[in-house]
């Protein structure tokens, strides 16, 4: 389905939902008005209210709305906004204290921590700011002086939303900038290399490693809990190694750094002064990524050669499927949009493979695998290319443009293997008794490296949109609830939004992700009392049928209710940003649409409720 078709179908669904809710709301209003005004009177009342509501929306004045927003800003600034920032600075201080920059690849941890802290703090701030304002105005009766001016209810609500958005955006920007510098500065480091740390590489080794004459090899000083192996040319220039192949194979190596090397590198230059050479090690580079991947569709070929959508299940409940080693079994990725202009030299393939070992020995040893590239139309295939897979390590594998087939005949990647932008990649595990675990996102072509700072800013767009929705929810609840109750209602809505995927699973009885259903409320209560695990069948009978039926109705109601709660986890890109993946613009656009999809009906509800509420009650 094209993006346009998808957008159209989603918009239609959205419009249908809004229309259905609107229709139900009108019916409820009519039924309430019926005993008081009669059929015609109730209809007339609803019509005149809608007409006036439409006028309120149509003649909404930006100037008055901005005046209301200005009031909200003044109120928040003079009351409490600074508290949020102080809290955030405290959190950063705690982070400095407890996070360990010495571990291997600390950037995901740092990024996740600061972004999550910002996310939760700003949502907390949005809840507190938005939920109390209107009820306080009602309680203090300051609202009297507002609604007796030519201010429309729509302007009161929208002004509040805009004002609080502005109020919370300022600390969010400050938090964003400070958290970016916090992450970058905390993880920045350098090393020291002196002449005594280096040894001249023997001519034989030079020949084997195809290194230029005069090259030296050595190790940097240990800083931040690690050192780097370096090979410098005769001019004293080079780049520290990220993955050390000799150490990767070392079974005795205890920690990740020793086995797999570092996730970053440093540039090394030499300065010759008075006949003496000193080396300058640059800042850490490549710690932060914003990889732009091209992901493919994943299918699996079983041991019998049949193609399935699922791989072997090795017993853990993950989305990954496993490929059995030493058999026909393979993971088959079909990549689209493989453009020659993007990959002029060849494909840069990155793989994050999980291993499942059935042998006890060599836990740290890499497992051999192979890849084959195939033309999706002709089936023409390259010769297998071997690689060593290691757990918890992103393998960077370059597939050159010039390849050969199994018979040794030369192939051109784009001329022979890519058809209409599509190419198939088959991934196999070579040793028997070992398994490769892969999911749809684990193997991808790296189109380019985006800018980390821009990607970091994208995380804040997601957080900002969640903040806006929280404010809208807070303002809407506060149109008819008292301050503390409105805050509680907003907080519950937000918790629901954050936990939506889990709640959906609970409603669908799919909490375990397996064929064993997690059961509903009554069923669970019965299981607790009768001490029966979820895997055991309940006793057949009418009671069980009734329980299951009630649970079914409740689950269905909860599932439908959940449709009206936004999904904050889907709007948060913190995970992929921390893992070093670029957030594509389409995804950001989806977040914006989702926010609008919820914010617009919520605003309308808030406006109508405020219009119908007696301010002086």
């Amino acid at each position, binding site marked *: 389905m094209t993006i346009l078709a998808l957008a159209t179908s989603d918009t239609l669904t959205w419009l249908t939902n809004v229309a259905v809710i609107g229709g139900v709301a009108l019916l409820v209003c009519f039924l309430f008005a019926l005993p008081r005004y009669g059929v015609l009177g109730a209809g007339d009342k609803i019509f005149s209210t809608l007409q*006036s509501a439409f006028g*309120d929306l149509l003649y909404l*004045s930006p*100037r*008055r709305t*901005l*005046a*209301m927003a*200005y*009031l909200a800003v*003044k*109120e928040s600034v*003079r*009351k409490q906004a600074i508290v949020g920032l102080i809290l955030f600075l405290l959190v950063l201080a705690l982070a400095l204290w407890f996070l360990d920059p010495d571990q291997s690849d600390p950037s995901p941890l740092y990024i996740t921590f600061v972004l999550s802290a910002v996310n939760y703090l700003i949502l907390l701030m949005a809840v507190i700011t938005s939920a109390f304002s209107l009820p306080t105005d009602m309680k*203090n*009766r*300051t*609202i*009297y*002086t*507002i*609604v*007796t*001016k*030519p*201010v*429309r209810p729509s302007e009161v609500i929208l002004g509040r939303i805009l004002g609080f958005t502005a109020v919370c955006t300022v600390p969010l920007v400050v938090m964003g900038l400070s958290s970016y510098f916090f992450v970058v500065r905390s993880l920045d480091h350098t090393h020291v290399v002196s002449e005594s740390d280096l040894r001249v590489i023997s001519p034989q080794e030079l020949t084997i490693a195809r290194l230029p004459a005069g090259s030296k090899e050595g190790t940097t000083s240990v800083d931040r809990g690690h050192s780097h192996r370096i090979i410098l040319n005769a001019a004293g220039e080079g780049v520290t190694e990220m993955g050390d192949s000799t150490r990767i194979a070392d079974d005795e190596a205890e920690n990740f750094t020793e086995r797999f090397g570092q996730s970053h590198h440093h540039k090394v230059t030499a300065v010759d002064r008075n006949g003496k050479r000193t080396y300058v090690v640059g800042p850490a580079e490549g710690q932060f990524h914003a990889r732009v991947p091209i992901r493919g569709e994943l299918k699996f070929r079983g041991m019998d050669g049949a193609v399935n959508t699922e791989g072997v299940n090795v017993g853990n409940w993950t989305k990954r499927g496993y490929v059995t080693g030493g058999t026909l079994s393979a993971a088959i990725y079909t990549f689209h949009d493989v453009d020659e202009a993007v990959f002029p030299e060849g494909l840069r393939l990155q793989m994050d493979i999980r291993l499942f070992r059935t042998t006890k020995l060599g836990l740290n040893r890499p497992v051999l695998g192979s890849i084959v590239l195939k033309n999706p139309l002709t089936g023409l295939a390259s010769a297998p290319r071997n690689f060593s897979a290691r757990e918890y390590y992103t393998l960077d594998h370059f597939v050159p443009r010039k390849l050969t087939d199994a018979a040794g005949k030369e192939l051109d990647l784009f001329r022979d293997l890519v058809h209409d932008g599509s190419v198939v990649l088959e991934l196999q595990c070579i040793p028997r008794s070992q398994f490769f675990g892969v999911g749809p996102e684990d193997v991808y072509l790296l189109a380019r490296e985006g800018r980390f700072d821009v990607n970091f800013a994208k995380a804040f767009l997601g957080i900002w949109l969640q903040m806006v929705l929280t404010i809208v929810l807070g303002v809407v609840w506060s149109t008819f609830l008292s301050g503390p109750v409105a805050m509680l209602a907003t907080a519950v809505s937000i918790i629901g939004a954050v936990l939506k995927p889990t709640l959906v699973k609970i409603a669908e009885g799919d909490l375990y992700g397996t064929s064993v259903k997690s059961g509903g409320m009554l069923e669970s209560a019965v299981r607790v009392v009768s001490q029966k695990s979820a895997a055991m069948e309940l006793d057949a009978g009418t009671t069980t049928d009734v329980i299951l039926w009630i649970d079914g109705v409740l689950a269905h109601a909860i599932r439908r209710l959940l449709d009206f709660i936004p999904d904050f986890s889907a709007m948060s890109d913190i995970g992929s940003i921390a893992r070093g993946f670029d957030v594509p613009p389409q995804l950001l656009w989806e977040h914006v649409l989702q926010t609008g999809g919820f914010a617009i009906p919520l605003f309308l509800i808030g406006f109508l409720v405020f219009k119908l509420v*007696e*301010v*002086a*009650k």
Partner: protein
Amino acid sequence: MGIITRTSTTLTSGPAGGAASPDSGIVIETRGLAKVYKDFWGREKVRALKGLDLQVRQGEIFGLLGPNGSGKTTTIKLLLGLLFPSSGQAYVLGKAATDVTKNERIGYLPEESYLYKFLNAEETLDFYGRLFKLPKAVRKERIAQLLDLVRISGARKRQLREYSKGMTRRIGLAQALINDPDLIILDEPTTGLDPIGCREMKDLIIDLKRRGKTVLMCSHLLADVQDVCDRIAVLHQGELKELGRVDSLLKVRDVTEIRATGMSEECKREVLAVIERHQGKVQRVDHPTTTLEELFLEIVQDAEARPGRRAGEN
């Protein structure tokens, strides 16, 4: 509030002189206006207003009188659209009371000045001016005028949380006048004001009438109402008990009062004799007492004219 002007104390004349023209337009009209307060379950709690029929004409000062709980404030809230009527209709400036566009020409001073305490006087007036979409230059000019009028120019930068009750009333009045309204609704306008402030407020109300504005005020301070209102409505337990011109309502038809200065004892005797000759009955011959308000204002004015003088000194 400018210079204090003393109104005539002649008993029989109205306070401001000049009645509203009978041909003038109707500014406020209620027809069978009723309000019933209900509890959460929709059960009737209290009938605050019972079928009120009222007309307020353009250019008059109209007073709503009544004891606490008589329905005065409920009437005002219904007229402003702060409450919705249970039955009946309310029209203000020719529009339904629930129509927000009517507010363009209304100024409202609530019972207590419900203002944002975190704003200062200038910001308060600027904010309310923005709600009327007044251009910046007009707002600036009007804010300066109003702050002078209510005499709080010196405290314009202070947040309202630091204001005394009287100052809060004054800034409340200023916000009610920011849009130069045609109809001013004042709920207990003199509450919280000292005698000078009370007098200034009353003078201002009369001045508004002179400028062609219509004023609707409610108060339980009868002297205030008597001093300024052309017409009054007396409410009791939500019902209209009396409606009419203040002067005619207060006039005691069968008693005649003569006020004169420089009468000798002989002259008094002659006057009494004439009354008796014509079968009149003299009820009382006395020197009139002034009101405490009058006395207070005289003392303050004198103190300002002659600073340092103490009680008992000439």
